[in-house]
Each structure stands twice: as structure tokens, then as C-alpha cells.
């Protein structure tokens, strides 16, 4: 802190200059001291202002003022997150996977922000981190609880033996992985049995909506395929899953047949795949498709609003299909009115997969114990 003359510190600068030039010796000295002190103060104020701007920007970023993406390159290793390959605002890379991860997370952010007024994964501007080129021959993509991770498929095999392309190739996969993050911060659906299948279904629903939003497609124009382009030409299939016709995405001598059911009567009891989270998700996936198709127009507008609000406000860790059906119905009533066409469409959507929104749908039967007993042959098959 600088000390100032109590009188001169309120004297305007032009007057100080006059005093410094024409005053007595002591007046001159005090005026010069004050001029110098003022200059220092001005510099400090400027610094404070600059610091304030930087601070404000950091706070804004932390609070999530705009999207913030980083794409890392694992360079075929296993260490996460890897080396920074593209930051927010950087121009395109020469590497297609880096650009797909960057653009895909960007449009996913846009859908959640523009349509559902959600600021990123955590609702508070969380940075979207993605890693591409994870391991060698890694035919998968996953959400590790903090970031998205993408493998390159079967790039290490001869072309004639490859089954999978890179996992950033389909925009809905990127939307799918990012939505796992949203679910983690909202309903926190446990990754097992029906809550896990709902978790998977939410990711497919919003993954598909991201693709439709980018293409500006209405429900009847959309293909509803999850992972379109992911399978190579060596595989007989159109994608990994289809919300329009679960169970028909692929039928191949090497990969086998798409195991997804489209109706509760075909619910698959299994202990594999965390209790069939990627299998039975076909049921709520199809319910969403039927709802969106009945409503018409852009699926993200009405059906998407109902599903998003249910995910955000109603579903909990252990919610099952029946509860999800009832809660989406309730949400549609709250958003569009009791007895509205929208609420009726939700009811019909779930009825189409064997679930009554007022309860009493076709139960898959039994829980984990019965599944296990049936698996080991100690309970009758359904």
C-alpha cells in the first residue's frame, strides 16, 4: 500500500503537474510523489481490471458459460486421457476420429442446451473430454464415469476379417456415451437388470435424437438405427440396434443375431451383460419410437421433452420399466395436460411393448434369483 498526502491525493492530475512545475520545493516534491503514486495506483487498477476479466472468464467457464471440449489421443495405448489433440476453438485435425469426437460432442451439447436448456453433462458446464484411438483393436466405446473413450474397431486385423469400424463413425454413439454422463448426474440408474436397461435405453434415445437433430429429420424420416456405419461390409447388418424394429439390426454368421426384444413377452432373463442391459433396452427403446411416431414432427420436441424431464426429475437408481412407463405418462400430463394427445401417445407407446402406464403390464417375471435359477436350469423356462 502506498502512502499519500491527505491533501494532494484529491488534487486533479493537471493541477498536480502545475504544482510540480511552479510550487515551492516541498510542494514540488509532494506533487511529484503523488503523481508517481497515482501512476502506480493506475497500473495496479489496470492489473486488477485485467485480473478481474480473467477471473470472470474462469468463473464463467467453471459455471459453464458455453461448451468446452477437449479431444485426447491415446495413441493406441491404455492410459487415459492421453495427449491433447484438439481443444475448444481449434481448427480441424487431419485425423478423422479426432474431428468426429469433437464435432459429435459439440452437437450433443447443442441438443441438450438448445432444446432441453441443459448446460452440459452435469448441467453446470462440465468440460466434455473424449479420448480416441484407445488401445489396439479395441472394438468398443465407453463412458468411464468422467469421460468418453473410443476404440478404432478391428483396425489391427486384415480388411477381410474386420467386423467393426472406428467407434466415432456414428454420431449416435457419441450422443449415447455422453448421455450416460447425464444419467450419472440425474437418475443415477444402476447399471444392472431393468434400471441398467433403462440407463442404456436413455443413451440410445438421446443418441438417436442427436443424429435426428443434426439431420433435421422428423420421426417418420429418421432411421432409428444405433451405430449405423459401425459394422464393416463383412457383416450382414445395418447397425448394432434398431429402435424401430428391435432384434433385426444384424443377423450374421460371425456376430450372430441381434438379441433385442421389442415387447415384454420376449423379455430376456440373463445374468450376462449386467443382466441384459444392452438386450432388454430394446423394449423401452421401442416404446419411445412408438410414442415419437404417433406424435409426429421432430422427436426431440415432444417425446424427447417427456423422456428428458422424466430422466431428470422422476427416475431413480432402481426404477424399472413399469415405473418408467408410469412416470413418463405422468410427466407428459404435467407438460402437455392430462388427457392430452401427447399423454395418450405415451400411453400407447408403452402399450405397444406390453406395459400399461397405470400398472399391471406384462411382467417379465421373477427377479435376479429367478433369472439365476432359470439360467442353471433349476426353474422352468418361460
Amino acid at each position, binding site marked *: 500500500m502506498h502512502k499519500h498526502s491527505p491533501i494532494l491525493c484529491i488534487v486533479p492530475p493537471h493541477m498536480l503537474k502545475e504544482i510540480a512545475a511552479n510550487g515551492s520545493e516541498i510542494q514540488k516534491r509532494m506533487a511529484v510523489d503523488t503523481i508517481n503514486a497515482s501512476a502506480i495506483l493506475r497500473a495496479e487498477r489496470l492489473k486488477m481490471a485485467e485480473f478481474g476479466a480473467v477471473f470472470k472468464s474462469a468463473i464463467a467457464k467453471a459455471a459453464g458459460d458455453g461448451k468446452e471440449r477437449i479431444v485426447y489421443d491415446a495413441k493406441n495405448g491404455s492410459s487415459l486421457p492421453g495427449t491433447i489433440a484438439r481443444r475448444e476453438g481449434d481448427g480441424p485435425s487431419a485425423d478423422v476420429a479426432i474431428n468426429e469426437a469433437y464435432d459429435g460432442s459439440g452437437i450433443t451439447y447443442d441438443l441438450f442446451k438448445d432444446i432441453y436448456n441443459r448446460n452440459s453433462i452435469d448441467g453446470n458446464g462440465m468440460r466434455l473430454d473424449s479420448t480416441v484411438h484407445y488401445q489396439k483393436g479395441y472394438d*468398443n466405446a465407453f463412458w468411464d464415469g468422467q469421460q468418453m473413450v473410443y476404440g478404432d474397431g478391428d483396425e489391427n486385423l486384415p480388411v477381410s476379417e474386420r467386423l467393426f469400424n472406428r467407434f466415432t463413425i456414428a454420431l449416435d454413439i457419441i450422443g449415447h456415451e455422453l448421455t450416460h454422463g447425464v444419467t450419472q448426474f440425474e437418475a443415477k440408474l444402476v447399471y444392472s437388470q431393468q434400471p441398467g436397461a433403462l440407463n*442404456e435405453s436413455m*443413451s440410445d434415445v438421446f443418441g438417436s435424437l442427436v443424429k435426428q437433430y443434426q439431420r433435421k429429420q422428423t420421426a417418420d424420416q429418421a432411421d432409428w438405427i444405433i451405430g449405423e456405419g459401425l459394422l464393416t461390409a463383412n457383416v450382414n447388418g445395418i447397425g448394432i440396434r434398431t429402435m424401430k424394429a428391435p432384434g433385426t439390426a444384424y443377423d450374421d454368421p460371425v456376430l450372430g443375431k441381434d438379441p433385442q426384444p421389442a415387447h415384454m413377452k420376449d423379455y430376456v432373463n440373463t445374468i450376462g451383460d449386467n443382466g441384459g442391459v444392452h438386450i432388454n433396452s430394446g423394449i423401452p427403446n421401442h416404446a419411445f419410437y412408438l410414442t415419437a411416431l404417433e406424435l409426429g414432427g421432430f422427436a426431440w420436441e415432444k417425446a424427447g421433452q417427456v423422456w428428458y424431464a422424466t430422466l431428470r426429475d422422476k427416475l431413480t437408481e432402481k426404477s424399472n420399466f413399469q415405473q418408467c412407463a408410469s412416470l413418463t405418462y405422468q410427466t407428459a400430463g404435467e407438460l402437455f395436460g392430462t388427457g392430452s394427445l401427447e399423454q395418450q401417445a405415451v400411453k400407447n407407446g408403452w402399450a405397444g411393448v406390453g406395459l400399461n402406464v397405470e400398472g399391471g403390464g406384462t411382467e417379465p417375471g421373477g427377479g435376479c434369483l429367478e433369472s439365476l435359477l432359470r439360467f442353471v436350469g433349476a426353474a422352468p423356462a418361460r
Partner: protein
Amino acid sequence: MDVERIKFERTGGFANMRIAADLEPDDFSEEQLSALSDLLDKLDFAELPENMVSDPSASDQFTYTITVEAEEWMHTVVTGDASANEKMQELLELLNRLARNQMRKR
């Protein structure tokens, strides 16, 4: 370490494609067998906890079940991508490659 048999299964993942194989020493090249032995030693495999899938918030990761049968012991470990350390990742990559080769030959 004299490994007699390894049962390997990979489930889950975004595409939910299961890979499984029963591997015996003859299925490995000499170089692979040496790498396997080295990795099992460095991991102290027989002493690893049975369940190493630690992060409940991870989704779409693979779940790997590895059972190693050696001359004097047998041990099963279940792990996932996010929780596997570097040596475990190397082991998974090796077993995954061999399992896929075996499945292709069928």
C-alpha cells in the same frame, strides 16, 4: 509358473458382442507364453481380488472374466476396462487376441 489352462470371457460393451475361449499352452506361441507368464507374475494374479470392477458409474465398458488354472492353484478375476491397470490391460489384450483367433477358427 506352469499355466495349464485359461478360461477367458468378454461380455458387455456398447455392441454387446461376447467373446469366450478356453486356452491351453498349445494355443500360445512361445513368445506369447513367455509374455503371459511374465504378466501373471507381475500382476501376482493368484492374489488379486476376485472382483476388480470398481467404478459403478462406468457404462458400456467390457467385463472380463479370467480363470487361470496352474499346477497348484486356480483363481478367477472379474475386471473391467476402466479399473484395469497397465499390466492387466496387456494381459487382456493378449487373451482377447487369442480368444478371437480361436473363435474365428471354429
